[in-house]
C-alpha cells in the first residue's frame, strides 16, 4: 500500500512521454483529416523531438536552458504527484510553478516576441488558474478529499454533481492544450502574429524539452478529466477520449481570439463552476 504511490509516479515519469507523444501524433492526424489532408505519420512527434535533439545547441543566453529544464522537471513532478495520488491543490501549485519557469525562460532572453509570448502566457495562467482551483475544490466537495488517490477510487459519479465544473474545466483545457481559439501565447499552428511566441527563442534540445513537458502536461490534464468520471474507469477512459476529440474539433472550427476573450472565457468558466458549486453546497447543506 505504502509503495503504490511510488509506482504511479514512476510509471507516469516513464510512460507519459510515450503516451503524450502518441496522443500528439493522433491529434495531428485527426486534425489533418478534419482539414481534408493525410497528415504526418503517427510517430511524427517523436521524430520531431528526436530531430531537435540532433540539432546544434544555440541560445540567446545560457540562462534560458536553465529555466526550460526547470519547467520540464516541475511539470514532470506535478504530473508524478498526480499519478502518485497526491494532494490536488499542491499539484496545481507545483504546476503553476512549472509554468512560471517557462515564462521566466522566455523573459530571460530579452527578445520582443518571446517577451510578448511570456506576457500572454501569464494572461493565460491568470485565466485558467481560478478554474483549476475550483475544479479541485469541486472534486473535494463531492469526494471529501483533496487526494487524487481518494478521488480516483471514489464510487461517486462526480460528473453528475459537477457538470458545470466539468464544462468550465473543458473550456480552460483548450487554453492548456494550446488549442484554438485560445492558443495565444504560442500555437501549434504555424502562423501567428507573435511568430512562435513564448518559444520563439528556444531551439534544438531546449525546444525538445518544452515539447516533452507539453506531453507530460497533456497526460496530466487528461488524468484530471478522468477524475470526473473515475467511478467507472471505462466510462472514464471513453470520456477522456471524447473530450480530447472535442478539443481537436473546436481547434478546427474556430479562429484564434484576442487575449481579452481568453481572460474573460477563463474567468467565466470559473463563474460557471462556482454556480455549480454553490448549488451543490446548497444541496449538501439542505440535505445534511
Amino acid at each position, binding site marked *: 500500500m505504502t509503495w503504490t504511490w511510488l509506482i504511479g509516479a514512476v510509471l507516469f515519469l516513464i510512460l507519459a512521454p510515450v503516451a503524450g507523444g502518441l496522443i500528439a501524433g493522433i491529434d495531428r492526424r485527426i486534425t489533418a483529416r478534419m482539414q*481534408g489532408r*493525410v497528415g504526418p505519420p503517427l510517430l511524427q512527434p517523436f521524430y520531431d523531438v528526436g530531430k531537435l535533439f540532433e540539432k546544434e545547441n544555440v541560445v540567446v543566453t545560457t540562462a534560458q536552458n536553465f529555466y526550460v529544464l526547470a519547467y520540464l522537471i516541475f511539470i514532470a513532478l506535478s504530473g508524478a504527484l498526480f499519478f502518485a495520488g497526491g494532494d490536488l491543490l499542491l499539484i496545481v501549485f507545483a504546476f503553476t510553478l512549472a509554468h512560471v519557469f517557462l515564462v521566466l525562460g522566455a523573459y530571460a532572453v530579452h527578445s520582443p516576441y518571446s517577451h510578448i509570448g511570456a506576457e500572454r502566457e501569464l494572461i493565460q495562467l491568470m485565466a485558467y488558474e481560478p478554474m483549476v482551483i475550483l475544479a479541485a475544490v469541486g472534486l473535494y466537495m463531492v469526494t471529501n478529499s483533496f487526494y487524487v488517490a481518494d478521488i480516483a477510487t471514489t464510487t461517486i459519479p462526480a460528473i453528475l454533481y459537477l457538470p458545470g465544473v466539468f464544462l468550465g474545466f473543458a473550456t480552460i483545457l483548450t487554453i492548456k492544450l494550446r488549442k484554438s481559439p485560445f492558443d495565444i501565447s504560442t500555437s501549434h499552428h504555424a502562423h501567428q502574429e507573435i511568430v512562435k511566441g513564448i518559444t520563439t527563442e528556444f531551439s534544438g534540445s531546449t525546444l525538445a524539452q518544452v515539447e516533452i513537458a507539453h506531453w507530460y502536461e497533456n497526460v496530466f490534464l487528461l488524468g484530471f478529466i478522468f477524475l470526473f468520471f473515475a467511478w467507472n474507469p471505462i466510462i472514464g477512459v471513453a470520456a477522456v477520449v471524447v473530450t480530447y476529440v472535442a478539443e481537436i*474539433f473546436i481547434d478546427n472550427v474556430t479562429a484564434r481570439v484576442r487575449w481579452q476573450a481568453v481572460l474573460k472565457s477563463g474567468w467565466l468558466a470559473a463563474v460557471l463552476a462556482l454556480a455549480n458549486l454553490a448549488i451543490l453546497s446548497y444541496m449538501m447543506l439542505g440535505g445534511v
Partner: protein
Amino acid sequence: MGFFAMTKTVLRNLAGGPATRQYPVVPARTSALTRGHIAFDPATCRSCGLCSRRCPCEAIRIEKEEKVWEINRMRCVACGDCVEGCPFGSLTMERDYLPPVVEHVVEHHTITYVKPEKPEKKPKEESAGESA
C-alpha cells in the same frame, strides 16, 4: 448556427477522406498545355537565332559558327515564346518538369543539322555546364 459554422466542412472532410494528391507516389497532375520545360532538337535547328532573340530572359545563347545551342535552365521562365518563334519546329514545350539541381545548369547542345540533305536524326548530346 453562428458558433460552429465550419462544422459542415469538417464533417465532410472526415467523411470524404483526404483530398491529398500523393505526389511522389502518384505522378504530378499535368495537362496537355502544361509548360514544363523546353526541349531542343539539335537535328532540325538551323541556327537562325530567332529563339534567342525572342526569349525575354536571354536564356538561350547560340553560336552559329561553333554550332552551339545553349539554354540556361536557371533563367528560362518556360514562357514558350521561343517555341512559337522557331520556324523549324526544333523547340517543343514538354509537360514534365525539371528536377531540382544542386548547381546552376546550362544545357549545352551541339547543333547537328546538316544543310541540304534530309537531316538524319542523331542522338542529342547533352552536358551540364557550369556557371557562376
